[in-house]
């Protein structure tokens, strides 16, 4: 921090899209060796701003100063030449290429994979990010993939490293390791822009923070001097909502029982399920933690009925249903809210009323075998009112809704089917804080009315907030569920790395 000149200075950056102002007059500066947080909700414009810095998106107006000189970054290659490295939220890696091949693609130097492999190994070990340069990326765990991205940036000798929501896919232990690496880089003079909406992470890592909301800067802060509540106020403009989990007094009986479910995945990039047993009782929420790609998709398909399995492997309210398809399981009181809202939970181009029909037709939306559109319309209207869906009415196309509102509609639609069992994947993924709190409370209320709920999520905090019991799915194996009071983030994190099977994540992710 010897140089008084800011490494990066943004002045009055604005970017408008046809329907939204993504960045409105944004200014910020980052010193050499500073870890600077960009804090904001989904849709606050953080990612657009980072893409502008990285040259992937062009700003409409504003200036960018690099080491005091005005620069005009028009593409990522130019940004890399300046010394800007970026670790993407959705990794920009090529699955069928090896680690070293992936790295070679971004370096402007002679093509020599053997020499590069040696350097990759050297740099990865120096920063505590061990990597085998010759492994194919699709055989790596998510944490390892992130290491590839970071090592790729480090080999370009960056002066500024941008990380976009880097911890959303990491175990708590992996987060600690990442922070150590970042602190070490900062001590060597690298500036770091750290984008996140996780308050405690920013408090433990960052020297300073710029807070964004609705495309504008709403404040700057020294995170260590703030409280999570005060940061949250700047981020969402009001108090952080909290959920309440009242005790359940109704009858307790098993609704979903999974017995020794094994399922070989026929997708080369998939994970096979190994001997999974689980019970979800009426009136409780069971949360399954773990990082996507550890069998989550396969387990959801086996439970929802998209993949049929052995008859006796899945039981619904005392009936063996493993061999039944998704429709017949739904007939028996199962509802399922998938992770992909657009395309799987709802048809993007269809109106909400027609989307209500997709699963709601079981509520008698037909007359003489034909669709009764008036009933679908009424159903959708009721769902919109009851679950506070902000939209243009039942005629609005599903894709016109924000993530949070569409999720409220889909969850609401399923709740109105009066289920016995609800299975939800990533209930608040990409949903703003207010809608997240509403959805979590909705799930809690539903369970207390005697419905069994299974939630699969990557967000540990969310699971700790709503689950009665928590299990971990790692490398296709499910740990024994623990009562929430007995579970702690530390042990759950270790299980997420696959440690409960006595093998660690690196081993269990070896190529198939």
């Amino acid at each position, binding site marked *: 921090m010897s140089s008084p000149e800011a490494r990066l200075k943004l002045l009055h950056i604005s970017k408008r899209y046809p329907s939204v102002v993504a960045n409105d007059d944004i200014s910020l500066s980052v010193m050499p060796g500073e870890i600077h947080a960009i804090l904001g909700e989904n849709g606050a414009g953080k990612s657009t701003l980072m893409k502008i810095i990285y040259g*992937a998106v062009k700003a409409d107006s504003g200036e960018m100063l690099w080491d005091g000189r005005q620069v005009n970054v028009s*593409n990522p290659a130019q940004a890399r030449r300046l010394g800007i490295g970026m670790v*993407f939220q959705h990794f*920009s890696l*090529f699955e*069928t*290429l090896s680690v070293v*091949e992936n790295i070679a*693609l971004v370096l402007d130097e002679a093509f020599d994979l053997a020499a590069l492999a040696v350097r990759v190994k050297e740099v990865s070990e120096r920063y505590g990010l061990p990597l085998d340069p010759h492994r194919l990326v699709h055989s790596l765990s998510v944490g390892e993939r992130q290491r590839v991205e970071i090592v790729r940036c480090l080999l370009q000798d960056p002066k500024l490293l941008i990380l976009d929501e880097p911890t959303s896919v990491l175990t708590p232990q992996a987060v600690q390791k990442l922070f150590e690496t970042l602190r070490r880089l900062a001590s060597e003079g690298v500036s770091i822009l750290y984008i996140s909406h996780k308050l405690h992470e920013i408090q433990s890592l960052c020297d300073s923070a710029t807070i964004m909301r609705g495309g504008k800067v709403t404040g700057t802060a020294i995170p260590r001097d703030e409280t999570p509540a005060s940061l949250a106020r700047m981020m969402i403009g009001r108090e952080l909502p909290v959920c309440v989990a009242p005790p359940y007094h109704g009858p307790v009986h098993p609704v979903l029982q999974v017995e020794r479910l094994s399922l070989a995945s*026929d997708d080369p990039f998939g994970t096979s399920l190994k001997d999974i047993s689980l019970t979800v009782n009426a009136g409780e929420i069971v949360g399954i933690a773990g990082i996507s790609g550890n069998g989550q998709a396969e387990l959801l398909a086996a439970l929802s009925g998209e993949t049929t399995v052995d008859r006796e492997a899945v039981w619904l309210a005392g009936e063996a249903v493993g061999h039944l398809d998704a429709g017949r399981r739904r007939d028996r009181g199962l509802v399922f809210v998938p992770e992909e809202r657009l395309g799987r939970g709802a048809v993007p181009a269809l109106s909400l009323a027609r989307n209500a029909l997709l699963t709601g037709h079981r509520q008698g939306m037909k007359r003489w075998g034909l669709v009764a559109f008036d009933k679908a319309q009424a159903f959708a209207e009721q769902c919109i009112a009851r679950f506070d869906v902000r939209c243009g009415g039942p005629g609005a196309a599903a894709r016109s809704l924000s993530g949070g509102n569409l999720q409220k509609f889909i969850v609401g639609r399923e709740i109105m089917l009066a289920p016995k069992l609800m299975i939800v994947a990533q209930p608040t993924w990409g949903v703003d804080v207010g809608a997240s709190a509403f959805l979590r409370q909705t799930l809690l209320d539903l369970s207390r009315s005697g419905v069994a709920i299974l939630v699969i999520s990557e967000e540990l905090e969310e699971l700790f907030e709503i689950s009665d019991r928590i299990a971990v799915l790692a490398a296709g194996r499910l740990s024994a569920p623990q009562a929430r009071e007995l579970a702690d983030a530390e042990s759950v994190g270790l299980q997420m790395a696959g440690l409960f099977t006595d093998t660690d994540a690196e081993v269990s992710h070896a190529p198939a």
Partner: protein
Amino acid sequence: MLDYLPLILAGTLAAATPLIFAGLGELVAERSGVINLGVEGMMLIGAIAGFAAAAETGYGAVIGLPAGALAGAAAAAIFGFFALSLTANQAACGLALTIFGIGLSAFIGQHYVSYSLPGLQPIAIPLLSDIPLLGPALFRQDWVVYLSLIAFALVAWTLTKTRLGLLLKAVGEAPEAAHAIGYPVIAIRYGAVIFGGAMAGIAGAYLATVYTPLWVQNMSAGRGWIAVALVVFATWKPTRLMLGAYLFGFVTILQFHAQGLGISVPVQLLAALPYLATIVVLVLISRDRKLLQLNLPASLGKPFLP
């Protein structure tokens, strides 16, 4: 039978040559994520361009092949404009190109019906061609056959050993990621598609100026489609593609000899045999779904909008 062997092997190499050129070109295009079903059309366009150039100048394949390559590349550029720049459906554009190629080649070819060219003399490679039995079969060929082997070696080397090959694979697998790290996805795809067109053009020109050096309408006779199928069944690997092409060539020649021997099987059935045998064998060897999926360019056929 042993007397026939050199003849059959020699014929196999020549019959496989158009498939090798067209197949390698399509393989490169598909590696970049573009499926061009216009190979048949580009071959015919290359064939008539090559034939016309050879006939008008009198230089034969020496001028016919480059002319065919240019014409094929131009046809591929038209396809690229629609499928890449305007992001139209690749399958539809490719089919349209094939229909266009059949029509255009027949139209221009009207002048050349019953016109014939001198063809090429085989070149014997010293020493190697003296090996008994195999020597005359494999090392006494026209120069285009040798060129096809060089093309194979160059494409295989480029795909596996160079940055360009890596880049093609990357663009074919995840164009968004390639764009995010700053590569010009559309330009790379244009390059691959135009290369594919040039190779298909060479394949067509070889057919018209060397293989059967007289003009016959629709002379590619479905070889373009076999080339497209070969690429898929070869799981996008050049070596397997070569095997498929030689298999096709072998059965083609075999059935000619069978016809010559007067085996009492309908000629039409014999003529269908190379196509049938190639497809069946390739389906069998590429049955492994994992192999197919691991090698499939993930973005194949999907338009990319930066």
